[in-house]
């Protein structure tokens, strides 16, 4: 047993926690501070932690507290991702917080806490730690969703989210307890070796697994556990929606991927089929329901559900290539593309206060750059070339087909086709329909800058993915040794 754990390995989490406390304290103690300053401080802090983490932790392969907390390339990859997304979301929120919220410190502080939760989720190798990290994330999100206190929609969304979130947590916890009851362990590696030693799968264990899948299914919004997503995406303040759809989803997938690849790999025959069905249903329902949406945030909610279906295929086809594909699509679709779409939606909302799809009519004349960027994002979501979505989907689908699921990939391709229809309907509003109000929209420099960076990233991932893929392959090797 290790005498003293190497606390130095925890410093990224500790630093972000300290940053969160600092932001909260500054908000109290220096009331005259400009609201924006807190946002810039938080973003700069996250960026600094990102730089330090990459510089000092890349390539480390160590564990703390007997495997409860792992420092490897997989966790580092996700930490970097969360820090980047956190930075972007905070910068995206600055204008919104300025206009709509009274307590910027709470907003930024809670986002920072949730970043800590996500970082631990990606790094944990044990179910209870994972549970605690997930709760830290979820509680932060409950507050964030309801943070626009004078907006009844936001309050309603917050309440719904708490109730359903608690329900899903209960499922997850119950599943964990059943698993523990049968196997007597909660560490991923121990679960794996116990499963390997078993001749047949105990029914109780199967129930436990199913409950865990259901609980995690809630968190990633997989059908049939997706009902909360559209309402909450619509009601939450838009930057929070962006954060929900990007970061919390990525964190849940970090946990899912490590849990299935490390702990449950020996029992792959038991759950692979369940995930395959879940994936097929999720993408189909998500895409079909998306067609009927009138609100842009609900549209993105359903399109996100569909994308969760694609990502779940990567878990079902568990392999190094499948994991690469999942991570690649997660970065390409969720992180860059969805963020870009949300920057446009936020910029539009800040100026007009509207978020129906029909409100985007004539956007190509009112704000050409916004229209172009949103089109790029939508084309990327639909998986058309030059944009990230084409390359990442191609990679993910190829990887899944390789594991013998060509038919599932066929379903996914048909789904992509369906999704193209409703993405084109948004593009039609922006480019073809005339604007009811033809005034030009001014986009603040900060949002324009963020958007330009994101669009460039979308194109870069689309045409020159090898650097990103090298990082992803290194991350995968930490959970699935070649």
């Amino acid at each position, binding site marked *: 047993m290790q005498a003293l754990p190497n606390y130095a390995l925890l410093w990224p989490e500790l630093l972000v926690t300290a940053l969160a406390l600092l932001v909260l304290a500054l908000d109290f103690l220096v009331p005259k501070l400009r609201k924006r300053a807190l946002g810039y401080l938080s973003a700069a802090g996250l960026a600094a932690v990102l730089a330090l983490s990459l510089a000092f932790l890349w390539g480390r392969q160590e564990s703390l507290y007997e495997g409860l907390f792992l420092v490897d390339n997989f966790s580092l990859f996700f930490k970097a991702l969360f820090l980047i997304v956190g930075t972007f979301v905070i910068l995206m929120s600055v204008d919104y917080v300025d206009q709509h919220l009274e307590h910027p410190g709470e907003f930024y502080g809670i986002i920072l806490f949730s970043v800590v939760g996500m970082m631990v989720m990606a790094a944990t190798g044990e179910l209870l730690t994972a549970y605690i990290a997930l709760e830290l994330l979820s509680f932060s999100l409950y507050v964030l969703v309801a943070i626009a206190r004078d907006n009844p929609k936001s309050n309603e969304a917050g309440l719904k989210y708490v109730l359903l979130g608690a329900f899903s947590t209960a499922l997850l916890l119950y599943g964990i307890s059943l698993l523990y009851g049968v196997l007597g362990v909660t560490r991923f590696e121990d679960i794996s070796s116990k499963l390997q030693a078993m001749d047949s799968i105990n029914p109780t264990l199967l129930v436990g697994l199913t409950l865990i899948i259901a609980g995690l299914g809630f968190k990633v919004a997989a059908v049939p556990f997706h009902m909360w997503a559209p309402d909450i995406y619509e009601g939450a303040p838009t930057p929070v929606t962006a954060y929900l759809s990007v970061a919390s989803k990525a964190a849940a997938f970090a946990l899912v991927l490590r849990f299935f690849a490390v702990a449950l790999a020996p029992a792959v025959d038991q759950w692979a089929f369940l995930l395959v069905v879940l994936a097929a249903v999720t993408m189909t329902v998500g895409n079909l329901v998306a067609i009927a949406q009138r609100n842009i945030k609900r549209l993105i909610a359903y399109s996100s559900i569909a994308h969760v279906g694609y990502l779940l295929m990567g878990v079902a086809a568990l392999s190094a*290539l499948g994991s*690469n594909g999942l991570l690649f699509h997660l970065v390409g679709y969720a992180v860059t593309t969805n963020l870009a779409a949300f920057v446009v939606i936020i910029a539009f909302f800040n100026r007009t206060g509207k978020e129906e799809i029909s409100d985007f009519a004539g956007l*190509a004349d009112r704000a*050409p750059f916004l229209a172009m960027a949103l089109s790029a994002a939508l*084309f990327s979501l639909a998986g*058309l*070339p*030059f944009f990230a979505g*084409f390359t990442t989907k*191609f*990679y993910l*689908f*190829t990887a899944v*087909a*390789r594991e013998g699921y*060509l038919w599932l*990939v*066929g379903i996914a*391709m*048909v789904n*992509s*086709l369906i999704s*193209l*229809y409703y993405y*084109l309907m948004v*593009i*039609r509003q922006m*480019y*073809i329909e005339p604007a009811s109000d033809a005034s030009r929209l001014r986009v603040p420099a900060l949002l324009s800058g963020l958007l330009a960076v994101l669009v460039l990233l979308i194109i870069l991932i689309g045409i020159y*993915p*090898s650097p990103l*893929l090298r990082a992803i*392959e290194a991350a995968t090797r930490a959970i699935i040794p070649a």
Partner: protein
Amino acid sequence: MSLLDNHLLTLIVAVPFGGALALIFFPSDRPRAIHYFARAVGLLTLLLSVYTFATYWSKDGGFQFRESYPWLEGLGIGWKVAVDGITVPLILLTGVVLPAGIFMSWNVKHRPKDFFVLLMLLVTGVLGVFVSLDLFFLFFFYELAVLPMYLLIGVWGSSSDFGTFIRTKEYGAMKLVLYLVAGSVLVWVALVAMWVEAGMVSFDLEVLEKASFSPGFQRLFFPLVMVGFGVLAGLWPFHTWSPDGHVAAPTAVSMLHAGVLMKLGAYGILRVGMVLLPQGAQDWMPVLIVFGTINVVYGAISAMGQRDLKYVVGYSSVSHMGYVLMGLATLEPLGVSGAVLQMFSHGIMTALFFALVGVIYDRTHVRDITVLEGLSKRMGVTGAFFVVAGLTSLGLPGLSGFVAEILVFIGTFRTYPLLGVLGVIGAAITAVYILRLMAKVFFGPLGDRWKGLPDAARIETGAMAVLVFFLVLVGLMPWPLLRLIDVDVATLLQRIAGA
């Protein structure tokens, strides 16, 4: 010139793409500069395609101007380009139609910048498909060619009024995009299946070519390739997007889409289906030739029933693409060569047709052939060009359509005589509707409404004259093209016969 030769094909894709990128940064309020720049890019592409045609060493045949770099080693994807005798004519075709389309767009005043950016992207996709030897990039460019279509038709297109109902441009655009992407779904599934079956090492066409797929596998996946690419080639019964889409599209887009893009479909069947799945090709070609014949006859009959001038041309495209499919399906040297030549010939001819319809519609704002009467009296040049296009279409000797169609017919008669007869009947129907149309629209008495009609502008005349020149040139001297095509068609057919 060796630097140019070593990077020729990358350059030929990069020129329109770079043109699109550069145009994005043009100020929107300088339409003249935008138009001139687009024309320069178009002419440069023409120059490069002519250079490719002239320097391709036809005695050797096979793939030339090779270039390859790794791109994603994990999946075995690389940037690998080369052209053979089958692709060179198609590149030349693209190089001719692109500038013609750009010059014909001289009167695009609404958002010219966005228009040309999207048009250049479209052509980047087309050229990319023709030069790619890596299936990933082939698919990449194939989808890229579809991407700009929705906006090109939706923003700059026109709706058609049928009296009782209106076919909106949005409808045509959406239909076209969804049909084509649906086709690409089938293609993609087949591509990945081949990649898996061949050992998951490479998307390189030449590597996959060496993998011998089992007959059962080939029989299962050839139809996916055939129908998937066939959708874009206007294969019956998946052709309905073509008239609706092409009619709704603005002139230059119809020219490029019907002229060049539909050829991607036939090319895909040839390059991916016939090369990689030779056994499957042998098994399924009898089906394809039946569908191709239906294309010819059904397209011609449909064209006869249209009142809208542009729909006539749209359905005639469906009919003429049928000859391409028939020719490919004969698996017989003359037939396949004829099919490739028909791709070239039909590409130029349809581009000319759509350009002419564009000119007429621009002057008269009418496309109803019951209203248009005796236009030749006022629009002499337009009428003369229309006669050339029409006679090519019905296969008059001395024009390119004759050479291509006669080859296809000989090939078909050698293999499926009955279908050959039907094909000839299709050509006869074409003669009926084309001659009737020309008699009415151009050579009847001049309608009162059209007394003050101006003829085609000088810039339009120039662009269309180039197309006419190629129709006549290939009609009189098809050998330079056929020599290229024959060598590689022979190699291909040997491979299929050996399967």
